[in-house]
């Protein structure tokens, strides 16, 4: 059969073709890396990025060449696609892993219970000691208040858009939510700052919360909207057909069905604002002392603390260590939030009971 001969190459009439052994991709990768290192050494290239790129290129080309010889063109393309996916995966994971690794390595130097429970009150930026208690308090209060404002407004807006919104008002709300998504954090900070200046107020934590709430709202609206759209219309109709009013249907059927996803969305929005520095710098200003009252006086926050330890300590290694430890704390905080969101999503997900 002539067509079969074209498809399978050497083994005319057979469904079986030659296959590379399972270890082949790994072997090709190892050889590529070795060659990449060798070429770099020979040519006197010192950058790690250069040899890694050479290795990646060799891997892809080598895979195609070898596979095309042994297995045929179609399988070769398949293998190239697979190796491209792997290269892309590594390119994405390497920076992430290296970021986490260097933060952990440098962060653990001063991170201990003392560090978490003391402020910078009487410690100069260039000296050892001190801690981030005041920044943790500030961050928690500012983020908490921002969430209290931003999450309900965001969720209610999404409910309006999905369940009630028709016509021009809904379209313009959607448009402005999209615009808000693109607001740079510093602009949100400047907006609140202009109000603060009009009212002649001094920096305080709640002002930061307001700016953070502005940044948080569009994220919550978008994610909640998507989650509400996922609730099948049949459930709404089933409830309406039982003679349940629409608002109760939303409250008792639609929201419980999607609560897992909505919570995840809110948590991700919280994680997003937890790292904001610019508006906090403008509105909360920073404060080495513990200030428990978010409504009066300057406060600290974790990202702001990191920034100020780095920029205002004139290169003191102690301040650098503290900045890294605070970074690690912040990453851990965001990670715990994400894990909590996943836990809630799994706990609240509709159950099948099977």
């Amino acid at each position, binding site marked *: 059969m002539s067509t079969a001969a074209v498809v399978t190459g050497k083994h005319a009439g057979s469904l079986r073709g030659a296959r590379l052994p399972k270890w082949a991709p790994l072997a090709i990768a190892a050889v590529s890396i070795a060659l990449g290192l060798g070429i770099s050494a020979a040519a006197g290239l010192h950058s790690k990025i250069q040899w890694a790129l050479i290795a990646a290129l060799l891997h892809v080309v080598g895979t195609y060449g070898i596979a095309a010889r042994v297995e045929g063109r179609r399988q070769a393309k398949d293998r190239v696609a697979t190796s491209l996916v792997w290269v892309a995966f590594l390119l994405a994971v390497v920076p992430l892993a290296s970021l986490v690794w260097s933060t952990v390595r440098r962060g653990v130097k001063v991170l201990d219970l003392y560090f978490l429970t003391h402020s910078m009150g009487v410690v100069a930026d260039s000296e050892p000691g001190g801690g981030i208690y005041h920044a943790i308090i500030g961050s928690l209060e500012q983020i908490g208040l921002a969430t209290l404002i931003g999450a309900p407004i965001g969720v209610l807006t999404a409910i309006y858009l999905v369940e009630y919104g028709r016509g021009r008002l809904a379209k313009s709300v959607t448009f402005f939510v999209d615009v808000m998504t693109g607001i740079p954090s510093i602009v949100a900070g400047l907006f609140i700052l202009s109000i603060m200046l009009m009212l002649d107020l001094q920096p305080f934590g709640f002002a930061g919360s307001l700016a953070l709430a502005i940044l948080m709202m569009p994220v919550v609206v978008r994610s909640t909207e998507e989650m509400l759209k996922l609730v099948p219309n049949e459930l709404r*109709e089933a409830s*309406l*057909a039982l003679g349940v009013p629409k608002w109760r249907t939303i409250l008792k059927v639609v929201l419980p069905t999607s609560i897992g996803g909505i919570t995840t969305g809110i948590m991700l929005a919280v994680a997003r604002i937890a790292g904001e520095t610019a508006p906090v710098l403008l509105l909360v200003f920073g404060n080495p002392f513990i200030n428990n009252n978010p409504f009066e006086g300057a406060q600290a926050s974790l990202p702001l603390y990191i920034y100020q330890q780095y920029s205002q300590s004139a290169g003191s290694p102690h301040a650098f260590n503290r900045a890294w430890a605070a970074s690690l704390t912040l990453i851990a905080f965001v990670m715990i939030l994400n894990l909590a969101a996943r836990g809630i999503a799994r706990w609240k997900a509709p159950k099948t009971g099977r």
Partner: protein
Amino acid sequence: MAKRIDVSGLTAYYGSHKAIEDISMTIEPRTVTAFIGPSGCGKSTFLRTLNRMHEVTPGGRVEGKVLLDDEDLYGAGVDPVSVRREIGMVFQRPNPFPTMSIFDNVAAGLRLNGMHKKSELQDVVEKSLRGANLWNEVKDRLNKPGAGLSGGQQQRLCIARAIAVEPKVLLMDEPCSALDPISTLAIEDLIGELKERFTIVIVTHNMQQAARVSDRTAFFNLAGVGQPGRLVEIDDTERIFSNPSVQATEDYISGRFG
């Protein structure tokens, strides 16, 4: 308890598209009326106008009268929510609430309408599940999620949920089309029992089913693509299936359609 429905000159739209035109019929209490007809002829739309579910669809609106024992469902000041408490509905695909247990699913209608006494709820749930022939299968796992039941059981759960609020009329939109023959038989038997207490209207694509369960049958058709659906005739089921007065009905029933 069951009530009569009188429809006169009913026309329903989706936006500017006219879906059904000028339908008039009477549905007697404690009977089963089946709607048959080709896909897209407006059977389901008409069914949904009977408990004002049609207007839930964006752009859906209705002209004409639907009288429930002399009270116009589309009259001024009529609350669609109270209409739906009188006229319940079972859908094509079983749709138990995924976040609720079997018990909560059946109690949903009552609870969402403000009944909270545990003992009363228990009585109603048991009575409704017995009414839907599901009690024996689920009595030991009332707290398990409703979505864990089989398709046929889920549909009977939805029927139990619908009859728990004691409607006067029960509308069923192809309730067996997603079910196997055994579950279908269970539901058809159930319809026979329920008609002692409720007025039942059922949409079905299964002609044998219409012949088996219904007392009266209405045949819907549409003149052509893009034309609104119309009621061709409504008569006793026996007459429709043996000696219909319109040729189109006979053609459809005997498979010489289109």
